[in-house]
């Protein structure tokens, strides 16, 4: 196991702080942001890691200075982040709710220009300003915000340890495949504290960033002229088709999921993020009563791990969607299953049930009750 060779340290930390530490370990050198609960400690922890701006700390990975900019708003944060990526630096931001809405301005540009932005989204309550606490109501916005097609990577971590693992991974995915990449957490995960194992990035995993403008092409006297504005329908159509085939190809390498006790399961719970952690506990509770229940958990909401999904639900009698929203995750999965059935492969959709609790946390007991409920 390569993990054993790493210099690991165990620490008691808050979720948002975990993300900042992981970003530093990933080789990120700058942060651009605007404060918003429940994401602010990502920014504040990064500021602490940067130290005194007159004598800034260095990246343990690149030995470059760590820096940050508190911008005038989320549009500025998002576009300054794009600027830093264009200049070849691993950079990131963190936001939530109404900030996520404004930042879609930049993310839609990043999607069009294939800029490897990394953004941490800590979901707060949905419907406008709402609560500063928790929901899973920023799934659609994060996956598809903007007038695009969702050529993005969205990780949905379930635990504090996941926050570390997938922050580290986000930067490499973004720079390897050139899609705007998101770590979609929530206020519960961001604000809770617990033990986390930190470890440095392995050299062989590290994807080296290159400037997109004034980079290697320029050194060969080739100019790079990026555009997001086109004259003809056919021009933009061919770009979208190109991105579609790139995304289909890259999805095979990017998509991740977890199948937990699904092999003989008649009932498959489907949940993501922190709700999947509760669902996992519920599976164990139900298994102890010998109910044949398993959990399928998308780790990437974009792209979805369709082969794994199909094999998890293919033999099941029913699936139960569980989320702190009114079906934002389940729409993604239904779409994927319909698209799969359109490929002509024989596949019977099991019966579907749902436990939707928009903007509320969901406990293992509530999930157990839902599973045991007679239709």
């Amino acid at each position, binding site marked *: 196991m390569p993990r054993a060779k790493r210099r690991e340290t165990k620490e008691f930390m808050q979720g948002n702080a975990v993300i900042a530490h992981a970003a530093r370990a990933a080789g990120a050198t700058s942060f651009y942001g605007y404060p918003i609960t429940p994401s602010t400690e990502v920014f504040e922890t990064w500021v602490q890691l940067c130290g005194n701006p007159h004598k800034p700390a260095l990246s343990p990975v690149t030995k470059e200075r760590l*820096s940050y900019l508190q911008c005038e708003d989320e549009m500025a944060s998002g576009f300054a982040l794009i600027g830093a990526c264009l200049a070849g630096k691993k950079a990131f931001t963190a936001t939530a709710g109404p900030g996520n809405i404004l930042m879609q*301005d930049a993310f839609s540009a990043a999607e069009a220009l294939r800029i490897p932005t990394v953004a941490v989204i800590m979901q707060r309550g949905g419907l406008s300003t709402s609560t500063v606490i928790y929901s899973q109501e920023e799934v659609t916005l994060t996956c598809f915000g903007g007038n695009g097609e969702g050529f993005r990577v969205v990780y949905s971590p379930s635990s504090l340890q996941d926050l570390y693992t997938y922050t580290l991974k986000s930067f490499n995915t973004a720079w390897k495949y050139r899609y705007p990449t998101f770590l979609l957490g929530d206020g519960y995960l961001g604000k809770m504290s617990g033990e986390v194992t930190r470890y440095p990035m392995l050299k062989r995993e590290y994807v080296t960033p290159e400037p997109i403008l004034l980079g290697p092409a320029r050194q060969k006297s080739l100019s790079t002229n990026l555009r997001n*504005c086109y004259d003809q329908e056919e021009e933009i159509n061919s770009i979208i088709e190109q991105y579609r085939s790139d995304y289909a190809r890259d999805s095979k390498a990017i998509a991740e999921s977890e199948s937990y006790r699904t092999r003989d399961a008649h009932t498959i719970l489907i949940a993501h993020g922190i709700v999947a952690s509760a669902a996992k506990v519920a599976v164990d509770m139900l298994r102890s009563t010998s109910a044949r229940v398993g959990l399928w958990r998308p780790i990437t909401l974009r792209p979805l791990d369709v082969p794994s999904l199909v094999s998890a639900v293919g033999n099941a009698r029913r699936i139960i969607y569980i989320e702190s929203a009114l079906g934002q995750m389940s729409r993604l999965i239904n779409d994927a299953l319909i698209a799969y059935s359109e490929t002509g492969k024989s596949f019977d959709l099991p019966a579907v049930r749902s436990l939707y609790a928009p903007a509320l946390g969901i406990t293992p007991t509530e999930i157990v009750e839902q599973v045991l409920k007679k239709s």
Partner: protein
Amino acid sequence: MKTSNKQQRNRKETAPRTASLPVPSFPRCYKESSKPHKFCPGCGHPITLHEIGMVVDELGIQNKTAFLIDIGCSLLAWDFFDIDTTQTHHGRTVPTAVGFKRAMPDATVIAYLGDGGGYAIGTQHLVHATLRNDPITVIIINNLTYAMTGGQMAPTTIEKQPPTTTAPFDRTPDVFGTNLKGPELVLHLAMPGAFVARTAVDNPLHVRMTIKEALLHQQKNKAFSFVEVLSFCPTNWKTNAQETFAWMGAFKETYPLFKTITGTNS
């Protein structure tokens, strides 16, 4: 879209010479494949772009300049130069330039946008880049209108001119408020040592000298530099050449040319 400098130069050198005709001097950093350019005849944008090209040549910074352009008629310049460029979103060119410059401090970074992009949808970015003294050069093409979208009222539109589709009965202050003067705003906000100027395309040499000073300021003094260029838009002004120049003369009364380094004369 990739063409090499060398290829372009070779092409130039092997082209047959028409000795009798005066050859206009095009900047070496022009991208030949994108000429003739896409701007309307008589437009002020290509005049300013020509002068930017001359300065880039003169300072020898073709390989270290990032030219970032807004959405507006500036977007037509996406492949104007054999210089690294990107389009952004309407109003978001300044923060993109800020992020780029912070990540690559040795680059010469130019944010090129219209008066709508700079003074309406992106005003907050201009204000804060000024306050932070970000060492970038912001060039705003002030044609007193939203040109790309067909001549709507801009923050710079003055009472009678130019005609606009969204204030067709004139921009009367009682209904529409007053107009915005960008360089003057920047002057009020800037830290000492920022370069602030207004120039106009009816004097291209003045545009060139001003932009040269701005870029040198960015490089040497590592401070904010801001140039507003009063510019022609005969298409939306609905003017002939003579009227275009006459209007420009009149606009200079509202928008006087000046040049200063903040904090040096107060």
